[in-house]
Protein backbone atom coordinates (compact mmCIF):
# COMPACT_ATOMS: atom_id res chain seq x y z
CA UNK A 1 0.00 0.00 0.00
CA UNK A 2 2.82 2.37 0.95
CA UNK A 3 4.57 1.40 -2.31
CA UNK A 4 1.47 2.35 -4.28
CA UNK A 5 1.28 5.72 -2.48
CA UNK A 6 4.97 6.45 -3.16
CA UNK A 7 4.54 5.47 -6.81
CA UNK A 8 1.41 7.57 -7.27
CA UNK A 9 2.87 10.64 -5.54
CA UNK A 10 6.07 10.68 -7.56
CA UNK A 11 4.17 9.90 -10.75
CA UNK A 12 2.39 13.24 -10.22
CA UNK A 13 5.71 14.97 -9.61
CA UNK A 14 7.06 13.54 -12.87
CA UNK A 15 3.92 14.32 -14.83
CA UNK A 16 3.28 17.92 -13.78
CA UNK A 17 6.76 19.45 -13.46
CA UNK A 18 7.41 21.47 -16.60
CA UNK A 19 10.60 23.40 -17.20
CA UNK A 20 13.20 21.33 -15.35
CA UNK A 21 15.39 22.31 -12.40
CA UNK A 22 13.42 23.90 -9.62
CA UNK A 23 10.04 23.32 -11.33
CA UNK A 24 9.70 19.98 -9.52
CA UNK A 25 10.25 21.57 -6.09
CA UNK A 26 6.70 22.90 -5.43
CA UNK A 27 5.20 19.58 -6.57
CA UNK A 28 7.50 17.57 -4.30
CA UNK A 29 6.66 19.86 -1.37
CA UNK A 30 2.93 19.39 -2.05
CA UNK A 31 3.20 15.58 -2.13
CA UNK A 32 5.74 14.75 0.57
CA UNK A 33 5.28 17.57 3.11
CA UNK A 34 1.71 18.90 2.77
CA UNK A 35 -0.18 15.81 1.70
CA UNK A 36 1.58 12.79 3.18
CA UNK A 37 3.83 14.32 5.88
CA UNK A 38 6.61 11.91 4.84
CA UNK A 39 9.13 14.68 5.58
CA UNK A 40 8.93 17.72 7.85
CA UNK A 41 9.48 21.11 6.19
CA UNK A 42 12.90 21.11 7.90
CA UNK A 43 13.88 17.78 6.33
CA UNK A 44 12.50 18.89 2.97
CA UNK A 45 14.68 22.01 3.04
CA UNK A 46 17.70 19.86 3.95
CA UNK A 47 16.82 17.60 1.01
CA UNK A 48 16.76 20.54 -1.42
CA UNK A 49 20.10 21.70 -0.01
CA UNK A 50 21.64 18.23 -0.40
CA UNK A 51 20.21 17.96 -3.94
CA UNK A 52 22.01 21.15 -4.88
CA UNK A 53 25.33 19.72 -3.73
CA UNK A 54 25.07 16.28 -5.36
CA UNK A 55 24.66 15.38 -9.03
CA UNK A 56 21.27 14.34 -10.36
CA UNK A 57 17.83 15.96 -10.79
CA UNK A 58 15.97 17.18 -7.68
CA UNK A 59 13.02 14.90 -8.47
CA UNK A 60 15.15 11.74 -8.69
CA UNK A 61 17.13 12.70 -5.56
CA UNK A 62 13.90 13.29 -3.63
CA UNK A 63 12.32 10.05 -4.82
CA UNK A 64 15.38 8.12 -3.64
CA UNK A 65 15.63 9.96 -0.29
CA UNK A 66 11.93 9.78 0.60
CA UNK A 67 11.58 6.21 -0.73
CA UNK A 68 14.41 4.96 1.49
CA UNK A 69 13.11 6.80 4.55
CA UNK A 70 9.55 5.48 4.15
CA UNK A 71 10.07 1.98 2.76
CA UNK A 72 13.78 1.21 2.31
CA UNK A 73 15.50 0.46 -1.00
CA UNK A 74 12.36 -1.08 -2.60
CA UNK A 75 10.52 2.16 -1.72
CA UNK A 76 13.26 4.21 -3.36
CA UNK A 77 13.08 2.07 -6.51
CA UNK A 78 9.28 2.36 -6.72
CA UNK A 79 9.33 6.14 -6.14
CA UNK A 80 12.09 6.70 -8.71
CA UNK A 81 10.25 4.54 -11.24
CA UNK A 82 7.06 6.56 -10.69
CA UNK A 83 8.95 9.79 -11.13
CA UNK A 84 10.50 8.88 -14.50
CA UNK A 85 7.62 6.88 -16.00
CA UNK A 86 5.70 9.93 -17.37
CA UNK A 87 8.92 11.21 -18.99
CA UNK A 88 9.58 7.85 -20.65
CA UNK A 89 6.14 7.78 -22.26
CA UNK A 90 5.67 11.48 -23.08
CA UNK A 91 9.17 12.17 -24.42
CA UNK A 92 8.99 9.24 -26.84
CA UNK A 93 5.45 10.16 -27.98
CA UNK A 94 6.50 13.80 -28.47
CA UNK A 95 9.66 12.76 -30.34
CA UNK A 96 7.58 10.59 -32.69
CA UNK A 97 5.01 13.37 -33.27
CA UNK A 98 7.75 15.91 -33.77
CA UNK A 99 9.62 13.86 -36.37
CA UNK A 100 6.32 13.26 -38.17
CA UNK A 101 4.89 16.80 -38.24
CA UNK A 102 7.81 19.07 -37.29
CA UNK A 103 5.28 21.42 -35.76
CA UNK A 104 5.05 22.17 -32.08
CA UNK A 105 2.86 25.27 -32.18
CA UNK A 106 0.29 23.98 -29.69
CA UNK A 107 2.97 22.68 -27.33
CA UNK A 108 4.84 25.99 -27.50
CA UNK A 109 1.58 27.83 -26.77
CA UNK A 110 0.86 25.70 -23.71
CA UNK A 111 4.42 26.08 -22.42
CA UNK A 112 4.21 29.85 -22.93
CA UNK A 113 1.24 30.03 -20.57
CA UNK A 114 2.81 27.63 -18.08
CA UNK A 115 6.08 29.52 -17.71
CA UNK A 116 4.75 32.43 -15.59
CA UNK A 117 2.91 29.94 -13.35
CA UNK A 118 6.06 27.84 -12.94
CA UNK A 119 8.02 30.94 -11.86
CA UNK A 120 5.27 31.79 -9.36
CA UNK A 121 5.18 28.26 -7.92
CA UNK A 122 8.97 28.14 -7.52
CA UNK A 123 8.74 31.52 -5.76
CA UNK A 124 6.07 30.15 -3.40
CA UNK A 125 8.22 27.09 -2.59
CA UNK A 126 11.17 29.45 -2.02
CA UNK A 127 9.04 31.39 0.48
CA UNK A 128 8.32 28.21 2.47
CA UNK A 129 12.04 27.34 2.48
CA UNK A 130 12.87 30.80 3.86
CA UNK A 131 10.05 30.75 6.42
CA UNK A 132 11.45 27.44 7.71
CA UNK A 133 14.96 28.89 7.84
CA UNK A 134 13.96 32.13 9.60
CA UNK A 135 11.31 30.86 12.01
CA UNK A 136 11.67 27.04 12.12
CA UNK A 137 8.44 25.46 13.35
CA UNK A 138 7.55 28.53 15.45
CA UNK A 139 4.85 31.09 14.69
CA UNK A 140 6.13 33.98 12.56
CA UNK A 141 7.02 36.85 14.91
CA UNK A 142 9.62 39.62 15.20
CA UNK A 143 11.31 38.24 18.32
CA UNK A 144 11.17 34.64 17.13
CA UNK A 145 13.19 35.51 14.03
CA UNK A 146 16.62 33.92 13.50
CA UNK A 147 18.35 37.19 12.53
CA UNK A 148 21.68 35.45 11.88
CA UNK A 149 20.06 33.47 9.07
CA UNK A 150 18.29 36.59 7.72
CA UNK A 151 21.69 38.31 7.52
CA UNK A 152 23.29 35.24 5.86
CA UNK A 153 20.42 35.14 3.35
CA UNK A 154 20.96 38.81 2.44
CA UNK A 155 24.74 38.38 2.11
CA UNK A 156 24.28 35.32 -0.12
CA UNK A 157 21.64 37.03 -2.27
CA UNK A 158 23.87 40.05 -2.86
CA UNK A 159 26.86 37.77 -3.62
CA UNK A 160 24.82 35.80 -6.16
CA UNK A 161 23.52 38.94 -7.89
CA UNK A 162 26.75 40.93 -7.85
CA UNK A 163 29.35 38.22 -8.57
CA UNK A 164 29.59 35.12 -10.72
CA UNK A 165 30.28 32.87 -7.74
CA UNK A 166 29.14 29.27 -8.07
CA UNK A 167 25.82 28.74 -6.18
CA UNK A 168 27.19 25.61 -4.46
CA UNK A 169 30.10 27.67 -3.12
CA UNK A 170 27.70 30.34 -1.84
CA UNK A 171 25.64 27.68 -0.06
CA UNK A 172 28.70 26.17 1.62
CA UNK A 173 29.74 29.68 2.65
CA UNK A 174 26.28 30.17 4.19
CA UNK A 175 26.76 26.99 6.22
CA UNK A 176 30.21 28.01 7.42
CA UNK A 177 29.02 31.55 8.31
CA UNK A 178 26.22 30.10 10.43
CA UNK A 179 28.60 27.68 12.16
CA UNK A 180 30.92 30.61 12.92
CA UNK A 181 27.98 32.78 14.01
CA UNK A 182 26.57 30.22 16.46
CA UNK A 183 30.04 29.68 17.88
CA UNK A 184 30.52 33.39 18.58
CA UNK A 185 27.02 33.87 20.03
Amino acid at each position, binding site marked *: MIYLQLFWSFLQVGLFSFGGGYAAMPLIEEQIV*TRHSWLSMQEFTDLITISQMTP*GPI*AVNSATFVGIKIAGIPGALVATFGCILPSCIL*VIVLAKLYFKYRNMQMLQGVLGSLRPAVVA*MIAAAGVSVLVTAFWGDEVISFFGTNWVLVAIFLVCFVLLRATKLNPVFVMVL*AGVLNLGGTWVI
Partner: protein
Amino acid sequence: MKKHVILRKLFFSTLYLSAFTFGGGYVIVTLMKKKFVDKLHWIEENEMLDLVAIAQSSPGAIAVNGAIVVGYKLAGILGALVAIIATIIPPFVIISLVSVFYNAFRDNFIISSLLEGMQAGVGAVIASVVFDMGVDVVREKSAASDIIMALSFIAACFLDVNVVYIVLVCAALGVVRTLLQKRRRAK
Protein backbone atom coordinates in the same frame (compact mmCIF):
# COMPACT_ATOMS: atom_id res chain seq x y z
CA MET B 1 28.66 -0.02 -35.93
CA LYS B 2 27.41 -3.00 -33.97
CA LYS B 3 24.43 -2.36 -31.74
CA HIS B 4 25.98 -3.65 -28.52
CA VAL B 5 28.97 -1.35 -29.08
CA ILE B 6 26.61 1.65 -29.36
CA LEU B 7 24.68 0.54 -26.28
CA ARG B 8 27.82 0.06 -24.19
CA LYS B 9 29.23 3.44 -25.21
CA LEU B 10 25.83 5.07 -24.60
CA PHE B 11 25.63 3.51 -21.14
CA PHE B 12 29.08 4.60 -19.98
CA SER B 13 28.89 8.10 -21.53
CA THR B 14 25.54 8.78 -19.88
CA LEU B 15 26.67 7.27 -16.57
CA TYR B 16 29.76 9.48 -16.58
CA LEU B 17 27.82 12.66 -17.45
CA SER B 18 25.21 11.95 -14.78
CA ALA B 19 27.80 11.24 -12.06
CA PHE B 20 29.88 14.33 -12.59
CA THR B 21 27.41 17.01 -13.65
CA PHE B 22 26.49 19.48 -10.95
CA GLY B 23 24.10 22.30 -11.72
CA GLY B 24 21.03 20.71 -13.19
CA GLY B 25 19.49 19.55 -16.43
CA TYR B 26 20.48 22.42 -18.70
CA VAL B 27 24.16 21.79 -18.03
CA ILE B 28 23.91 18.06 -18.66
CA VAL B 29 22.08 18.58 -21.97
CA THR B 30 24.88 20.89 -23.16
CA LEU B 31 27.47 18.26 -22.19
CA MET B 32 25.48 15.59 -24.03
CA LYS B 33 25.65 17.73 -27.16
CA LYS B 34 29.42 18.01 -26.78
CA LYS B 35 29.79 14.25 -26.39
CA PHE B 36 27.39 12.92 -29.02
CA VAL B 37 27.54 15.70 -31.63
CA ASP B 38 31.02 17.24 -31.46
CA LYS B 39 33.06 14.26 -30.25
CA LEU B 40 31.39 11.06 -31.42
CA HIS B 41 29.50 12.57 -34.43
CA TRP B 42 26.60 10.21 -33.81
CA ILE B 43 23.94 12.95 -34.03
CA GLU B 44 23.79 15.99 -36.30
CA GLU B 45 23.87 19.43 -34.72
CA ASN B 46 20.42 20.53 -35.95
CA GLU B 47 18.79 17.31 -34.93
CA MET B 48 20.36 17.58 -31.48
CA LEU B 49 18.84 21.06 -31.08
CA ASP B 50 15.42 19.59 -31.85
CA LEU B 51 16.01 16.73 -29.41
CA VAL B 52 16.98 19.21 -26.70
CA ALA B 53 13.82 21.23 -27.41
CA ILE B 54 11.73 18.07 -26.94
CA ALA B 55 13.56 17.21 -23.70
CA GLN B 56 12.92 20.70 -22.36
CA SER B 57 9.25 20.87 -23.34
CA SER B 58 8.32 17.51 -21.82
CA PRO B 59 7.43 17.26 -18.14
CA GLY B 60 9.95 15.72 -15.75
CA ALA B 61 13.67 16.15 -15.13
CA ILE B 62 15.53 17.55 -18.14
CA ALA B 63 18.55 15.29 -17.58
CA VAL B 64 16.31 12.20 -17.73
CA ASN B 65 14.40 13.53 -20.75
CA GLY B 66 17.68 14.33 -22.52
CA ALA B 67 18.94 10.78 -21.90
CA ILE B 68 15.67 9.38 -23.29
CA VAL B 69 15.75 11.37 -26.57
CA VAL B 70 19.44 10.66 -27.19
CA GLY B 71 19.11 6.96 -26.32
CA TYR B 72 15.96 6.61 -28.42
CA LYS B 73 17.54 8.37 -31.38
CA LEU B 74 20.65 6.15 -31.26
CA ALA B 75 19.16 2.74 -30.50
CA GLY B 76 15.36 2.87 -30.22
CA ILE B 77 13.44 1.88 -27.08
CA LEU B 78 16.31 -0.28 -25.82
CA GLY B 79 18.68 2.68 -26.19
CA ALA B 80 16.27 4.89 -24.23
CA LEU B 81 16.12 2.30 -21.41
CA VAL B 82 19.90 1.93 -21.27
CA ALA B 83 20.35 5.73 -21.15
CA ILE B 84 17.71 6.14 -18.41
CA ILE B 85 19.26 3.45 -16.21
CA ALA B 86 22.72 4.99 -16.62
CA THR B 87 21.34 8.44 -15.73
CA ILE B 88 19.51 7.19 -12.63
CA ILE B 89 22.28 5.03 -11.10
CA PRO B 90 24.63 7.82 -9.87
CA PRO B 91 22.04 9.98 -8.02
CA PHE B 92 20.33 6.85 -6.70
CA VAL B 93 23.54 5.48 -5.17
CA ILE B 94 24.76 8.85 -3.87
CA ILE B 95 21.45 9.82 -2.24
CA SER B 96 21.11 6.34 -0.72
CA LEU B 97 24.47 6.83 0.99
CA VAL B 98 23.61 10.41 1.97
CA SER B 99 20.34 9.31 3.57
CA VAL B 100 22.26 6.86 5.80
CA PHE B 101 24.66 9.60 6.90
CA TYR B 102 21.85 12.14 7.22
CA ASN B 103 20.09 10.08 9.88
CA ALA B 104 23.36 9.45 11.71
CA PHE B 105 24.67 13.03 11.61
CA ARG B 106 21.63 15.37 11.57
CA ASP B 107 21.76 15.72 15.36
CA ASN B 108 25.48 16.49 15.38
CA PHE B 109 25.98 20.14 16.39
CA ILE B 110 28.40 21.04 13.59
CA ILE B 111 26.42 19.31 10.82
CA SER B 112 23.07 20.73 11.96
CA SER B 113 24.56 24.20 12.24
CA LEU B 114 26.05 23.94 8.72
CA LEU B 115 22.77 22.64 7.30
CA GLU B 116 20.82 25.40 9.06
CA GLY B 117 23.04 28.06 7.49
CA MET B 118 22.83 26.37 4.12
CA GLN B 119 19.03 26.62 4.28
CA ALA B 120 19.41 30.41 4.17
CA GLY B 121 21.94 29.93 1.34
CA VAL B 122 19.64 27.71 -0.74
CA GLY B 123 16.85 30.24 -0.10
CA ALA B 124 19.09 32.92 -1.61
CA VAL B 125 19.88 30.68 -4.61
CA ILE B 126 16.16 30.08 -5.21
CA ALA B 127 15.39 33.81 -4.77
CA SER B 128 18.07 34.65 -7.33
CA VAL B 129 16.74 32.09 -9.84
CA VAL B 130 13.18 33.38 -9.35
CA PHE B 131 14.43 36.95 -9.85
CA ASP B 132 15.99 36.06 -13.23
CA MET B 133 12.99 34.02 -14.39
CA GLY B 134 10.53 36.68 -13.18
CA VAL B 135 12.37 39.44 -15.07
CA ASP B 136 12.17 37.30 -18.25
CA VAL B 137 8.39 36.96 -17.83
CA VAL B 138 7.89 40.70 -17.18
CA ARG B 139 10.05 41.51 -20.25
CA GLU B 140 7.55 39.63 -22.45
CA LYS B 141 5.34 42.71 -21.88
CA SER B 142 2.27 40.50 -21.92
CA ALA B 143 -0.45 41.46 -19.43
CA ALA B 144 -1.81 37.89 -19.55
CA SER B 145 1.57 36.43 -18.44
CA ASP B 146 1.89 38.96 -15.59
CA ILE B 147 -1.64 38.18 -14.36
CA ILE B 148 -1.02 34.41 -14.57
CA MET B 149 2.19 34.87 -12.55
CA ALA B 150 0.54 37.04 -9.87
CA LEU B 151 -2.54 34.83 -9.47
CA SER B 152 -0.49 31.61 -9.42
CA PHE B 153 1.72 33.03 -6.68
CA ILE B 154 -1.28 34.04 -4.54
CA ALA B 155 -2.90 30.63 -5.09
CA ALA B 156 0.27 28.65 -4.25
CA CYS B 157 1.64 30.80 -1.43
CA PHE B 158 -1.41 32.12 0.44
CA LEU B 159 -4.39 29.99 -0.55
CA ASP B 160 -2.56 26.60 -0.36
CA VAL B 161 -4.03 25.49 -3.68
CA ASN B 162 -2.59 22.15 -4.87
CA VAL B 163 0.03 23.10 -7.49
CA VAL B 164 -1.19 20.34 -9.80
CA TYR B 165 -4.43 22.33 -10.30
CA ILE B 166 -2.44 25.47 -11.09
CA VAL B 167 -0.50 23.57 -13.76
CA LEU B 168 -3.71 22.11 -15.24
CA VAL B 169 -5.56 25.46 -15.32
CA CYS B 170 -2.61 27.25 -16.95
CA ALA B 171 -2.14 24.45 -19.52
CA ALA B 172 -5.84 24.73 -20.42
CA LEU B 173 -5.45 28.52 -20.69
CA GLY B 174 -2.50 27.95 -23.04
CA VAL B 175 -4.62 25.71 -25.28
CA VAL B 176 -7.38 28.36 -25.47
CA ARG B 177 -4.89 31.16 -26.16
CA THR B 178 -3.18 29.19 -28.95
CA LEU B 179 -6.52 28.31 -30.58
CA LEU B 180 -7.68 31.97 -30.44
CA GLN B 181 -4.40 33.11 -32.01
CA LYS B 182 -4.75 30.54 -34.78
CA ARG B 183 -8.29 31.69 -35.52
CA ARG B 184 -7.25 35.35 -35.54
CA ARG B 185 -4.44 34.57 -37.96
CA ALA B 186 -6.75 32.58 -40.23
CA LYS B 187 -9.16 35.52 -40.64
